């Protein structure tokens, strides 16, 4: 298995070639260690996708397609992965904030985060501060991810961070905000630890926090 070719093909969104390479690999009855390397190569491919997006060569449609490609790739590899001992690198509670129903970006981020080894508790859309606090209390995540597209999402994000503070949970988690309206100023006003408009960059930030 040519790992760097696999990474390249994922980056190019060459679905046929990727499936061919992965199916051939699975048919060789590989060890869990070898499979781990292949999974890592796939994740590197997602980084390549993120870079293309950053450069303005790829668009959201490409990210969606990449997310699907990655999910399918992991499905092909599941039978030869060591899922018993596969720890997670960290966990996160993720959701689109109150008043906002948009979830495409959140879903792209989720599939990339899962592919990178995070356990993601996805609350869904239109989630209130109360709902976030409850889930954080329940699962003790490393990270909380807040997503939104509308201007009103910024207000909701602020409420959620405040609620986490009131509940004594803020210092226990890292908060990352994502979506159209997020900026450095918004991040400071909201009290988040990081912000991004690029799902792959967001995952990199999360990896730095746990790694």
């Amino acid at each position, binding site marked *: 298995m040519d790992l760097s070719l696999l990474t390249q093909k994922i980056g190019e*969104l060459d679905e046929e070639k990727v499936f061919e390479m992965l199916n051939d690999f699975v048919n060789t009855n590989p060890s869990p260690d070898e499979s781990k390397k292949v999974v890592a190569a796939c994740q590197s491919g997602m980084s390549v996708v993120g870079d293309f997006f950053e450069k*303005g*060569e*790829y*668009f*959201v*449609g*490409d990210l*969606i*397609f990449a997310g*699907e490609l990655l999910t399918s790739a992991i499905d092909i590899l599941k039978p030869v992965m060591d899922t018993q001992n596969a720890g997670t690198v960290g966990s996160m509670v993720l959701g689109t904030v109150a*008043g*906002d*129903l*948009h*979830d*495409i970006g959140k879903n792209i981020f989720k599939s990339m985060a899962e592919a990178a080894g995070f356990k993601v508790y996805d609350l869904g*859309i*239109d989630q209130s501060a109360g709902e976030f606090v409850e889930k954080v209390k329940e699962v003790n995540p490393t990270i909380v991810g807040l997503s939104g597209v*509308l*201007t*009103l999402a*910024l*207000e909701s994000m602020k409420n959620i961070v405040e609620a986490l503070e009131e509940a004594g949970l803020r210092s226990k988690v890292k908060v990352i905000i994502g979506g159209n*309206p997020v*900026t450095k*100023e*918004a991040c400071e*006003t909201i009290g988040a630890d990081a912000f991004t408009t690029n799902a792959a960059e967001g995952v990199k930030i999360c990896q730095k926090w746990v790694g």
Partner: protein
Amino acid sequence: MSDKLKLYDERVKRLKDAIELREPDRVPIYGLVDNWALSYYGITLEEALKDVELEYKAYSKALTDFPFDGALASRVTFPLNFVYSLGGGIFNNATETIQIATGHSEIMAVEEYDELIADPMKFIRDKILPRKHKIFQEGTVEEKFAKYANSLSIFFQFGQTTKMLAERFKTEHGLPITNAGVNHFMPGDMIMDYLRDFKGIMRDIKKCPDKVAEACMAMVDPMVKDTFGKMRTVSDDKYVHLYLHLPQFIRAKEFEKVYWPSFKKYVEAVAARGVKILILFEKNWEHLYEYIQELPKGSVIGFFEEDDLRKAKKALGKTMCIAGGLKTNDLYYGTKEKCIEVAKGLIDDLAPGGGFVFAPDKVLATKNDAKAENLKAVTEFIVEYGSK
């Protein structure tokens, strides 16, 4: 002639001059006002849908408290009562806004493109509507027809009321509501929003782009027919409004292949009949300027959301009027002074030579999209500063 009608004609001319790429008597200000009007007045969406008079009062206040030269709509833009009567639809308005609930629109299978291409109206009417709407899924044939007739009557009432309200804005406020009742998405947007949903169309664009392109082209003629079925007369104060969803998410080459040919054909057909087209170029269109500069000259007013308007005017100023400029983030979170500073810069750089209209960068949909005092300060500033 009454004062209001005189004011109306002045405003229509101001906008017409800008769209036809001349310098008007002052920089026009366009009221891209959506559901923000409801919270500004102090009513909920539910209340507006139940009482047209209340709805009119709310929009009247929002559209006349500020010196707008034209506005997007006389009321809540979407016929939600009609949608309710069908048993629901893709818009979820539980949040005082009208947002598409994603993930519910993959109603068409990828194998059905050929049927859509062969006869879009037949396919949508006979296959999609029954799949989509509750009222077609239970009861006898007579019951289904009765419910459908009821829904249509609600729809027609919406259309008639909307026209009536626009007329009231003309005679009572002298304010042009440029919405002629033709609010379209382009074929590519319709396939995304109503037939294949987001994931579906992104996949189709990669896997069967020829089909997507063909389907979009097949939908143009029915759309043109629908447009001029609604617009029986052509006048300077009524435009076709287009809201473009798909292009911001795909690469330029993909846009060129699947979306552009049908978009161009439709706009050309409308412009050929002397009708102006108002287009919301959502998100960022810089990578597509080489295409849209080919749209009919002097017929389009293009609202740009994230683009640098100075770059847009340079690239597109010979083709279309450029509109927008003030971010809702600034209108809500910024100071009056910041908003005025932005407006001054826009007028200095974009007004000379005409072809510029001031507006927020996107429609004002919720309370958080603008602080009234900011909007007042900046629009009053423009009336002063933007005069010749």
